[in-house]
C-alpha cells in the first residue's frame, strides 16, 4: 500500500513536470499592459494590433487594462504590478527620479497635446490682449496647469486681467454653458469633445507657444529589460506595428476600436483618432522612425519640469529611455 502511494506520487510529479515543460515550450508569454486612461480612440492602434494579431505573432498573450491617469500607471509599472504601461513622458521621468526603475521604450506621441481651448466666437487670437476680463478653467489635478503657469511667465501675461477657476474634468460643460470662456486641457480630448457637441471649437496649442514636451509613451520596468530583453523587444515591436499600420489605415484602426468598444461615442472617436495620429510626427521620427526619442529632448523635458517645480531634482535621462527596442 505504501509503495503504491509512492509510485502514484512519482508518476503524478512526472506528469506535472511534463505538462509544465510543454506549457513553457508552447504557451505564449502572458504580458499585461496598463493604459494611461479609460479606453478612447487615442488607443485605437493598440486595439488594432490586438485584432490584427500583431501580439500573437510575437507569441504574446496580451492582457490590456484601462488606466486611471499616468501617475498611477507609472507606479504600477515601477512596482512590477504590470509589465508595460502607456503613460505620459513627464510622469515616467518624475517616477524614475523618485526611484522607480522605469524605461520608456517608445515615445509614441512626440508633441504636447496641451492647449488653451475656447469657442471660436470668444475670438481669442493674441493671449496678451484677448484674455482680458475672461474666466479661464484650469485643471489643477494635471500638469497642464503648471504648463499654463510657465506660459503666463514666458509670455509675460497679466494674470490680474483675467480670472482663473479650478475646472478639473469639467472643461466642456463649463465652456458650453459659458461659465468659463477658455480652458487649459488636451485639445484631442476637451477640444474635440467641445467640437462634438456642435460648438465651433478653437484652440491655441502650447507646443506652438514653445512648451515642447514628449507626451504618451510606452514604458516598462528596468528589471524586466534585464531579465527578458527579448520579450521587451517583441512587445515593443508588436505595439509599434499597430501604430505604423494605423497611420496608413486609419479606418481600420477606428473600426477595431469601435468593435472592441461598441458603446463608444463614435463621432468623438472619429474626430479624435486623426488628431492623435498627427502627434506621432516629429523631425526626429521622420529621420529615425516612429517612437524614436533623443537625449536632447528628454533633457529639455526635464529642464521644463524642474522650472515648473513639478520635478524637484534631476535624474540621469539616459537611463529613462531607450531606442534599442525599436526596429
Amino acid at each position, binding site marked *: 500500500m505504501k509503495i503504491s502511494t509512492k509510485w502514484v506520487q512519482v508518476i503524478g510529479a512526472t506528469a506535472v513536470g511534463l505538462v509544465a515543460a510543454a506549457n513553457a515550450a508552447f504557451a505564449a508569454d502572458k504580458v499585461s499592459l496598463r493604459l494611461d486612461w479609460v479606453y478612447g480612440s487615442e488607443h485605437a492602434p493598440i486595439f488594432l494590433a490586438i485584432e490584427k494579431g500583431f501580439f500573437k505573432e510575437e507569441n504574446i498573450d496580451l492582457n490590456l487594462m484601462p488606466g486611471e*491617469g499616468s*501617475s498611477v500607471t*507609472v*507606479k504600477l509599472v*515601477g*512596482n512590477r504590478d504590470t509589465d508595460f504601461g502607456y503613460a505620459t513622458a513627464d*510622469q515616467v521621468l*518624475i*517616477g524614475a527620479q*523618485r*526611484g*522607480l526603475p522605469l524605461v520608456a521604450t517608445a515615445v509614441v506621441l512626440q508633441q504636447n497635446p496641451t492647449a488653451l481651448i475656447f469657442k471660436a466666437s470668444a475670438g481669442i487670437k493674441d493671449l496678451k490682449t484677448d484674455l482680458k476680463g475672461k474666466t479661464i478653467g*484650469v485643471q*489643477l*489635478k*494635471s*500638469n497642464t496647469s*503648471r504648463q499654463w503657469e510657465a506660459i503666463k511667465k514666458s509670455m509675460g501675461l497679466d494674470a490680474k486681467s483675467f480670472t*482663473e*477657476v*479650478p*475646472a*478639473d*474634468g*469639467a472643461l466642456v*460643460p*463649463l465652456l458650453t*454653458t459659458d*461659465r468659463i470662456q477658455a480652458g487649459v486641457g488636451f485639445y484631442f480630448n476637451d477640444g474635440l469633445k467641445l467640437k462634438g457637441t456642435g460648438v465651433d471649437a478653437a484652440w491655441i496649442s502650447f507646443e506652438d507657444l514653445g512648451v515642447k514636451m514628449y507626451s504618451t509613451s510606452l514604458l516598462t520596468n528596468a528589471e524586466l529589460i534585464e531579465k527578458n530583453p527579448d520579450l521587451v523587444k517583441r512587445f515593443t515591436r508588436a505595439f509599434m506595428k499597430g501604430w505604423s499600420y494605423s497611420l496608413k489605415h486609419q479606418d481600420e484602426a477606428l473600426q477595431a476600436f469601435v468593435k472592441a468598444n461598441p458603446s463608444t461615442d463614435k463621432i468623438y472617436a472619429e474626430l479624435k483618432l486623426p488628431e492623435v495620429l498627427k502627434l506621432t510626427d516629429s523631425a526626429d521620427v521622420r529621420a529615425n522612425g516612429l517612437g524614436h526619442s533623443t537625449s536632447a529632448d528628454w533633457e529639455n523635458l526635464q529642464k521644463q519640469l524642474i522650472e515648473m*517645480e*513639478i*520635478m*524637484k531634482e534631476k535624474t540621469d535621462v539616459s537611463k529613462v529611455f531607450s531606442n534599442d527596442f525599436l526596429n
Partner: protein
Amino acid sequence: MYRLTVTAGQILVFVVFFAAWELLVHLLHIKPVILPAPSRIAEVAWANHELLLRNTWPTFVAISLGFLWAVGTGFLIAVAIAYSKIIRDLTYPFLVTAQILPKIAFAPLFLIWFGFGLMPKVVIAALIAFFPVVINTAKGLTSVDGELLQYMDSLGASAWEKFTKISLPWAMPYFFAALKISITLAIVGAVVGEFVAAGEGLGYVINASNISLDTELMFAAIVCMSVLGILMFLAIVFFERLLIPGEQQDEGVQATM
C-alpha cells in the same frame, strides 16, 4: 485601574500599528513613492508644515459651514417631522431614499451647478451630513415617554414648555449621536469637494501632490486631515458632556445610520 489599563492598551494598538508599518516598509524595501514609512511622513509633514497649515484653514471653513448648515436645517426639519404626522408620512420615504443616494457621485457636477471655490465644497459637505441629523433627531423627539407628556399636560404645561423641558432634553443623546456621524461625513464631503472644485485646501494638496508623485506629501495631508477630523469630533464630545447630564450620556443610544 481598568480605565487606565484600557487607555494604555489603546495607545499600544496605535504604536504596534505604526511600528509594523515602519518595519515592513524597511524590510520589504518599499519605495517612498509607493508607500512611505511613518517616520518619513512625519519628516515631510514637518518640512511642509506651513503649506499644510495654510491649506487646513479653507478645509476647516468648508467643513464647519457645511456641518452647521446641515445641523441647522436638519434640526428644524426633524422638529417638523416629529410634530406633524402629515409631514412625517409625506417626507420620510423621500428622506430615506435621499440618504441612501450616493451623493458623492454627483461631485463633478457640483462644479457646474454651484460654481467655484467655497460653495460647492460647503454644499457637498452639508448634503451628506444632513440626513443623519434629520432622521436621528426626529427619532429622538418622537420616542419621548408618553406618560411624561401626559403628566406635563396634567400640570397645565404649554406645548412650548413640553418641547423645551421634556422632548428636547430627551432627544439630546440622539442629536449628539447624529452630530458625531455628521461631522465625519462633512469632512468626507468637503474633501471630495476639494478634489473636484478647489484651488486650495487639504483635498487640493492631495490632488496636486499626485502630479509630482509626491506620495509623502499626500500622506502628510491625510494625516493633517485626520487630526483636523479628530479635533472637530472631540469638540462635539466636549459640548455633549457640557449639555447632557452624566447619566444620560448613554453610549447605548446608537445613531440610526
